[in-house]
């Protein structure tokens, strides 16, 4: 029985829309995190000196420390963005798709 509904959901063009939209959003965000994260690790491995420099002449803030603190905040903001969009827009669309699939049964 649920297999029938799964089939109907699958055939609903809105399902493709959901998968496509959410998928590309999730992968884009993941790519941003992975590129920055491994980019940073490559800097740690190959150019540690640069990360130890101050951000400005005479400042106590090192480039690496500052950049990493920004990464902590930035990555968290990305999770916030994803949760907001997924729990709002994407979940509304999901609810719609399920409702339409169940309606056909009646």
């Amino acid at each position, binding site marked *: 029985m*649920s*297999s029938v*509904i*799964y089939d109907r*959901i*699958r055939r609903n063009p809105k*399902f493709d829309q*959901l*998968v496509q939209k*959410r998928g590309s959003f*999730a*992968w884009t*965000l*993941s790519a941003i*995190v*992975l590129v920055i*994260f*491994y980019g*940073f*690790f*490559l800097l*740690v*491995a*190959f150019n*540690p*000196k640069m*990360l*130890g420099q101050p951000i400005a002449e005479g*400042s*106590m*803030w*090192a480039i*690496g*420390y500052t950049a*990493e*603190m920004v*990464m*902590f*905040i930035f*990555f*968290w903001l*990305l*999770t*916030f963005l*994803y*949760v907001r969009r*997924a*729990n709002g827009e994407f*979940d509304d669309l*999901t609810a719609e*798709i*399920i409702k339409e*699939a169940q309606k056909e049964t009646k």
Partner: protein
Amino acid sequence: MSKRFTTALALLAFAGLAVAAGPALQGEIKTQPTNWHAIIMFLIFVTMTMGITYWAAGRTKSTADFYTAGGGITGFQNGLAIAGDYMSAATLLGLTAMTFSRGYDAYIYMMAFFAGWPIILFLMAERLRNLGRFTFSDITSYRLDPSVRTMAALSSLVVVVFYLIAQMVGAGQLIKLLFGLEYNVAIFVVGVLMMVYVTVGGMVATTWVQIIKACLLLFGGTLVLILGFSQFGFSLTTLLEKAQAVHKQGASLMAPGSLLSDPVTALSLGLGLMFGTAGLPHILMRFFTVGNAKEARKSVLYASGFVGFFFNVIFLMGLVAILLVGQNPEYFEGGDIKGALIGGGNMVAMHLAHAVGGNMLLGFLAAVAFATILAVVSGLALAGASAIAHDIYARVIRKGECTDKEEIKVSRMATIALGILAIILGIAFEKQNIAFMVGLAFGVAAAANFPVLILSMYWKGLTTRGALWGGYGGVISAVLFVVFSKAVWVDVLHNAAPLFPYTQPALFAMPIAFFLAYVFSVSDSSARAAKERDAFEDQYVRAQTGFGASGASH
């Protein structure tokens, strides 16, 4: 004598850092005088959590209640619990100590620990919640043969047991140090309390113990930092100027040091921590304790917020300690600030608490550290028990034909067995060099659990044959890489040189697992494989929409 304690100390750091290349901590642990402030505060914690366990017992009737608190935990509560699972006593003590001795390197480790969370959210949280019920093996075996479930349960158990041994031995050393209790007594107390929480209160109690402890830890750490940082007018510039002036690394205190100078190790560490986290059974299990994918996503948002915040607190604590602890002869053996810290390197956070808040705050932080260990081992025991009772007993041996009552009974027996095993192994390994165990746990999680889990969710082509090859291949290669590395081959087995030059297995073991899973799946032309590929469609729709996912039972 001193060497054994050094290795035990290193272990504590490893438990937090999950790396084989942890900081070399110096100094000797001595049993401390009995710390009454800490013991009284710990007893208050135990009384409170026992009350909760009693309350939870009344709410633990079905298997869903036992394993996943009936899915009735909110996203915020679960976020705290996940953060609690992730921030062990070793995180607090080990990372403060590492900042104290090595400065900026510690902050790099923290980022490696943190960055896995966004990835888990974007690529896994939703599908985990939509497909799983009690264990992550539910997902890997969703459309595959039960033998895949057995494989996933076994590799979960490997992870749980190694992690448990590391936690138990660390716990014994730490409690001996902080409370002045005998090692064996400490191990026994941890084991017995853990069995009570889990067998009586199931996931409801385990979650609440974790939540309370997470709040105490966040509160205690932040308080110590505020008190300490206020002495520098909350100015990072002032703090750094003064710290660099006295620290042995001087101006390079805030530059990357020697720990991650080798690119292969750095990359492998990054991979292992990021994807190891995404393969730890007790963390994955937390995604099933919430009602739906919405709450699962919120869990990660809150969890990563707390974890990120706390790492920054710990780093600043370490910097403050360079001045308030590192310059105070009171905390050094023989009053010599060039010598060893009293109690060993891992005592930095504790000395700092004493420096800014006296015996009361020291007692409080020590009690929190003890509570932290208890909460983490409870989560591990529950994850192990679910692999035994749900996956192996109920699903594979009884083929799903057993009542809730029978299954819970087996879970409880499994918990007690794991508790007894943990006590025995904890005592047996007291004097062993077990630094490799957490590395092994993370290695197996990253190389066996994670690849099969992610492929089963994302790749239509995965078949039973591919999953078994990938899973077992991942376990075996991760274990072999660790055994042949310096941590075991040289440090434990006393060979002259390691057969495997790197300390981190992930960069090598993960590709092996993915490769085997791929090759043995695409070359599988059996009728069963065709059926399994066909079954992906329904699984895919459920993963995306959550339709048919198990909901909250109350």
